[in-house]
C-alpha cells in the first residue's frame, strides 16, 4: 500500500469519526439541526487558512532555495486550500440562509474578505496554468503566494475588526462559548480535516512529480531549446 493510500484511508476513518461526533451532538436550542454544520464549516475554513499558510511557507522557501519541491508544496497546498474555502463558503451560505435569513450580504466584511481570498487563490492557479516556463512559473507564483497570505489574518480577524453578521470566534484563549458536546464535535472534525488535508496534499504532490517525470524535456521552443529545470536556475 502506498503512502498516499494509507493517508487517504486514515483520512476516511477520521472523517467517519468526525461525522459521528457532528451528527450525534444534541441539536441547538435556537438553531436546531443547522448547528450540526459546526462539524464542517469552521474546520474547512481553518484548514484553508493552514493551507494558504503552507503555500506562503513553500513560496518563501522556493525564493530562498529555488528547489522544485517547495514549488510543488506551494502549488499543491493552494489547490487543496481552494477546495476547502469553496466548502467553507458554501456551508456558510446554507447556514446564513437558515439563521440570518440571507445567504449572502455584499457589504459584510467577513463574507466579502473570504470571497476575495477565494478568488485571489483561484487567480494563483490560473497564473500557474498560464505560464509554460517552469522557472518563471515558480518565481511568479512564489511572489503571489507570499503576498496573498496577508488575507488570512484579515479574514480571520474581520469579525473583531468590523461590524459583521458573522459571530466572533467561539473558541478563545479564555475558553469556549459553546457547550462541551458542540466544541468536541468541532475539534474532532478539525483533526479529521487536517488529516484529510495532509492526504490530499500528498496525493497532489505525487501527481506533480509524475507529471514532471512524464513531461518532455522541451515544451517551449521545440527540440532546439530546452527550458531550464528549476535546479539549474541561479536567479530569474
Amino acid at each position, binding site marked *: 500500500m502506498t503512502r498516499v493510500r494509507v493517508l487517504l484511508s486514515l483520512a476516511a476513518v477520521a472523517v467517519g469519526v468526525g461525522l459521528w461526533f457532528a451528527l450525534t451532538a444534541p441539536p441547538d436550542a435556537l438553531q436546531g439541526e443547522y448547528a450540526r454544520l459546526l462539524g464542517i464549516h469552521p474546520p474547512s475554513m481553518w484548514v484553508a487558512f493552514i493551507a494558504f499558510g503552507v503555500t506562503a511557507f513553500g513560496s518563501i522557501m522556493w525564493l530562498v532555495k529555488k528547489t522544485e519541491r517547495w514549488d510543488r508544496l506551494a502549488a499543491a497546498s493552494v489547490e487543496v486550500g481552494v477546495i476547502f474555502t469553496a466548502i467553507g463558503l458554501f456551508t456558510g451560505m446554507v447556514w446564513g440562509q*437558515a439563521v440570518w435569513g440571507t445567504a449572502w450580504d455584499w457589504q459584510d466584511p467577513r463574507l466579502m474578505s473570504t470571497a476575495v481570498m477565494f478568488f485571489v487563490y483561484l487567480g494563483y492557479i490560473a497564473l500557474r496554468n498560464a505560464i509554460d516556463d517552469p522557472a518563471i512559473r515558480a518565481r511568479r507564483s512564489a511572489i503571489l503566494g507570499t503576498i496573498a497570505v496577508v488575507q488570512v489574518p484579515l479574514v480571520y480577524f474581520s469579525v473583531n475588526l468590523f461590524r459583521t453578521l458573522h459571530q466572533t470566534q467561539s473558541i478563545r484563549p479564555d475558553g469556549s462559548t459553546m457547550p462541551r458536546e458542540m466544541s468536541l464535535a468541532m475539534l474532532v472534525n478539525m483533526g479529521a480535516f487536517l488529516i484529510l488535508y495532509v492526504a*490530499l496534499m500528498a*496525493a497532489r504532490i*505525487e501527481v506533480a512529480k509524475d507529471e514532471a517525470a512524464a513531461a518532455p524535456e522541451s515544451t517551449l521552443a521545440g527540440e532546439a531549446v530546452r527550458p531550464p529545470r528549476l535546479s539549474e536556475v541561479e536567479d530569474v
Partner: protein
Amino acid sequence: MSETVVVAGTYLISYGLIAGYAVYLHLRRRRARS
C-alpha cells in the same frame, strides 16, 4: 424543506466535492504514468 434534509444535503455536497477531487487526482496520476 426540513432542516435535516438541508444539513444532510450540505454534508453530502461538501464531501462529494472532496471525493471528486480525490478521484480527479487519481485519474490525473494514472494518465501521467501511462
